[in-house]
């Protein structure tokens, strides 16, 4: 506890590559939850002890595939009710994971535990520049309240410039199936 400021946690974690389970990196982090105002995201400082796996090849394949689509990508329910994610949709799913991580961070307190539950809908938005843009409607599962929260997020991505969430907003519970 830090008087007048908030509560700080010191963490030692191991990052595991979801796609390559034997690829792990140690990490230390400090997370500061602010006192009082629950509308401020926690401060996070971290140090990676090692390097993350290089994903340039897969990134470029995905980037070029989307760039060359005739019609903008549209998809629903990823994963579907049975947990399936088609190979073509896997990168779209992974991108949502990364982007939802940002949304989760911005909305976390010491009393929340969010997970991405599902992508209800994703629509590619045409852009004239080199970025890819996706408009996602996702469902977040909040573990403590057990609520399923629909959330809209606009995601920009480029292989060299990384991921950006340019806009996000919590949706009312009766968002469409």
């Amino acid at each position: 506890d830090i008087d007048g400021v908030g509560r700080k946690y010191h963490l030692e974690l191991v990052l595991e590559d979801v796609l390559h389970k034997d690829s792990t990196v140690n990490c230390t982090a400090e997370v500061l939850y602010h006192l009082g105002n629950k509308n401020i995201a926690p401060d996070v400082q971290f140090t990676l002890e090692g390097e993350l796996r290089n994903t340039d090849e897969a990134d470029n394949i995905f980037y070029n595939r989307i760039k060359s689509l005739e019609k903008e990508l549209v998809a629903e329910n990823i994963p579907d009710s049975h947990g399936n994610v088609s190979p073509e949709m896997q990168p779209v799913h992974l991108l949502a994971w990364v982007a939802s991580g940002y949304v989760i961070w911005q909305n976390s307190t010491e009393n929340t535990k969010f997970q991405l539950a599902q992508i209800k809908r994703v629509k590619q938005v045409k852009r004239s520049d080199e970025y890819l843009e996706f408009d996602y409607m996702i469902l977040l599962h909040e573990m403590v309240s057990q609520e399923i929260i629909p959330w809209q997020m606009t995601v920009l991505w480029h292989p060299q410039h990384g991921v950006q969430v340019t806009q996000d907003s919590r949706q009312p519970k009766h968002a469409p199936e």
Partner: protein
Amino acid sequence: LQLDFWLAPRGLRHPVDIRVPFPSLQPLKAHLEANGVSYSIMIEDVQALVDHEQMEMLRSPRRLPLSTSTFNYDAYHNLDEIHAFMDLLVAENPNLVSKLEIGRSTENRPLYVLKFSKGGTNRPAIWIDTGIHSREWVTQASGVWFAKKIVLDHENDEGLASVLDKMDIFLEIVTNPDGFVFTQTQNRMWRKTRSKHSGSICVGVDPNRNWDAGFGGPGASRNPCSETYHGPYANSEPEVKAIVDFVKNHGNIKAFVSIHSYSQLLLYPYGYTSTPAPDHKELHQISEKAVAALSSLYGTKYKYGSIITAIYEASGSTIDWTYDQGIKYSFTFELRDTGRYGFLLPAKQIVPTAQETWLALKVIMLHARDHPY
């Protein structure tokens, strides 16, 4: 106007989608036009679409299983298929398995329990339930697998055979059938029952907050629209009341296991208080052994502890009640995974999940057999 926003307002130049009830059409149109707001109609008649989809779903029914050997354990099934499976299992093993109806759900669906018994009268028993929270699909699917496993192993597996020599096993596979059907037809993420309450448009009660143990205390919600709504009073839900009545009438249940997903946890009482359960040391030791057995198969990591320390404060939960009734070996599982797929666990993980969980269940069952009380 009872407008139902399907895409909520979020800023300038972003569209808003609204489902408009018929009586509100004219007033809304007038309002938009008066304010120079342009609109277009995306769906003329939502009800017609819903009706059509329903019709489509009924038109191409899935084929029911023909035997429990050809049943596909690697897939998720609907309620009819699971009921057909149960009847087949009984028909194929009439000397071991029988089907009991312990009550009816809010929407009048039967609440079936499979009884596995080698004889005797009112033997000490083990209870297992799956699917109390309907969206936790890997649990009902595991329940189906457990049923078949008991039949397959009841003679050749030493441990299981010795358990059944002395004890009966009761297995309720679809503990919340109304919720289950709802997850199949309307909302895959539905958790609660489907009971309606006057004074609220919201439906359903959290069946794992509806038990008479710390009922209504912190760790449950009194808001009917909440996912953890405890209900108007303890045992208000027929799905819960049926089990309560069964347990009380049976009077000889010695182990009670309620299965959920996800988080990979093995939990024992209490959830409604941080006072340790009198038997917590023993329950902790059993948990340690059970989790080790589970991990031995595929390396799946579980944590264990009391509900309140390992997960969160929860009042009115199942195993707090069963424990306070005197059923010492009361446990709750949270099965795979830890959030990557969550409730939407891929079907190919059903069997591995069921297999590893079964090893943990056997530890609990054997302990109950070896420590009569």
